[in-house]
């Protein structure tokens, strides 16, 4: 099995999908000739042709709206929007059309499509290039929202998303594109959309995170383990529908929970997860649920990024806070 990073895993998955299903087409800005701003679609137009992989005019609403029409007519489009901060012109298409067609036609028409969106900060990018507004997507009934943090999940979730009979917003952690590597099978396999992944089993405290923040969460778990704390790490990986059973199952066991996300605290998915924990396993808790999140600020420019991004220290401190009680 070859060792690949997360971007390569996605590239491989898209290539596999193009090769195995004639209905799959890719469309987006700069995804053909240049292989995308992050090179995730590198070489795919060359290998599969300009009738499968389309460079489009600069128009996010147009890309998603056209992909929607394609999906309704029986194709399996995978649309790319270059950054989450550029996705909002397409938000109307997603919330008003993509998410609703099954409902408004009682299953007669559906939109099986994937909307790929690189997200998150930490690479010193320009304004609007570092957003983590996943909660405004997870809030929409009718779509699914997925975010991988490992190459293995990236490939399996992408193939699952393309197979899925419902629309999937597929968030790709920019910071992890080339930061995580592992050997993964080249065969066709899927990772089920929905269930969380218990990445590291433990007994004392559950760290819950997803996407880019899994990097710091893993590091915090390692550090806590050095201090003798048995840490369970959960990669949520599907933000909608949320696997409440998987999350509360772990927290009921450890009695302690720290939720980590890059998005601003207020209105972030951490609140939804904390509420679920308090509804379902309050009496199993040994300490109040902790949230380690981005501050309630605009995502800052390069020189302030370190102020913003939740650090390993903050996660470790939050975990200790639960253990002190």
């Amino acid at each position: 099995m070859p060792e690949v990073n997360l971007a390569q895993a996605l590239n491989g998955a898209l290539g596999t999908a193009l090769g195995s299903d004639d209905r799959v087409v890719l469309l987006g800005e700069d995804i053909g000739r240049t292989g995308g701003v992050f090179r995730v679609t590198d070489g795919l137009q060359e290998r599969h042709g300009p009738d499968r992989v389309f460079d489009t005019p600069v128009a996010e609403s147009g890309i998603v709206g056209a992909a929607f029409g394609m999906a309704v007519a029986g194709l399996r489009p995978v649309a790319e929007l270059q950054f989450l901060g550029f996705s909002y012109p397409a938000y109307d298409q997603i919330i008003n059309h993509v998410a609703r067609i099954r409902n408004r036609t009682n299953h007669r028409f559906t939109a099986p499509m994937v909307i790929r969106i690189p997200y998150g900060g930490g690479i010193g990018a320009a304004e609007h290039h570092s957003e983590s507004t996943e909660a405004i997507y997870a809030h929409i009934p009718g779509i699914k929202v997925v975010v991988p943090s490992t190459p293995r999940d990236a490939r399996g979730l992408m193939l699952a998303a393309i197979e899925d009979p419902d629309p999937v917003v597929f968030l790709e952690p920019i910071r992890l594109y080339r930061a995580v590597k592992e050997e993964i099978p080249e065969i066709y396999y899927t990772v089920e959309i929905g269930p969380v992944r218990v990445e590291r089993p433990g007994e004392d405290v559950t760290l819950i995170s997803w996407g880019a923040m899994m990097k710091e969460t893993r590091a915090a778990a390692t550090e806590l383990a050095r201090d003798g704390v048995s840490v369970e790490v959960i990669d949520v990986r599907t933000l909608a529908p949320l696997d409440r059973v998987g999350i509360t199952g772990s927290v009921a066991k450890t009695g302690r929970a720290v939720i980590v996300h890059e998005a601003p605290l207020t209105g972030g998915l951490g609140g939804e997860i904390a509420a679920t924990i308090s509804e379902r396993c309050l009496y199993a808790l040994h300490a109040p649920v902790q949230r380690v999140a981005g501050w309630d600020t605009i995502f800052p420019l390069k020189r302030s990024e370190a102020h913003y991004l939740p650090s390993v220290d903050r996660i470790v401190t939050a975990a200790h806070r639960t253990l002190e009680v």
Partner: protein
Amino acid sequence: MSQTRGVNGSAMFGLIDPDGSVQNRLPVTVEEMKALYADMVEARTYDTKSMAMQRQGRLATYAPFQGQEGAQIGAAAALREGDWVAGTYRDAALNWRAGYPWELLILGRTGDERGGQVPAGVNVLPPSITVGGHMIHAVGLAWAEKLKGSDHIALTSFGDGATSEGDFHEAMNFAAVFNVPTVFFCQNNGYAISYPTSEQTRSETIAAKADAYGMPGLRVDGNDVVAVLVAVREAASMARRGEGPSLVEAVTYRMGPHTTADDPSRYRDTDEGLEWVEKDPLTRVRRLLEREKSWSDEWHDELEVTASERIEKAVEWAEAVPEPTFEEMLRRMYAEPTQGLLEQLREGGDA
């Protein structure tokens, strides 16, 4: 048709004058003309019935299309089975003529999602409620047909107001850039709720906007059902031949209010409406048929009776559909209900 091609909207194409006279031989037979007339009668019967039902509290808000029957029936008559239609809340006549059954249109207006479940083989999307977002769908639909190698096209219908939306630009541009078989059919009915077309744009016509996208634009008398049929058929044929998209502007008039919640007396004169009564799309066909000695009052009475019976039957059917259940509401969100929806089903269900 030939003399107006490439003009992009500075002239208006028409075949039947309001008094029923024609300048050239019509490209349709008398029988075809009578069939178009019959369709317009049936559409107007539905429209009138719907307005009345809304007043009785039997329908949710209704957007009438009276005055636009010629545009809608003409455009739909130019389509083939399997072609896609993405229209608006005011396009019931167009949607019906393209295969969307009256009973489902009515069911939808009673406030029931099942009204959107058109029969298999009918490629008409449910009416778009937001303004403008659906035009690009017809680009994707047409694009898919092109990639599949079929000769189906997609027609999107929208109003003059929608041409101010950013999505109009994105849709027109995408369609032209990818040379997909989409027909952009604008019913310029004079108003976006209260806002007149003259203030909506500084373009001389809507059709002229096609120039900017490198596609043909044609302005047609929207109250002339035959002219619309010919214009849209030409646009559709071009699309089918792989010659790409085009824009047809049908100049018409919304004789009624924007919706049952609107009061047009706040923004337009009654006199203006009277002018358009003279241009009514049904009246001019009637006058033409009378001139051609192809009109009889018995035939007309029979048409009206048949139309009424059909609409009444559709209403009866729609109103007999059992109330939707809580479970159905949750189960139509995804192909399979999610873990959370199943929990909510248990929580909120009758059981």
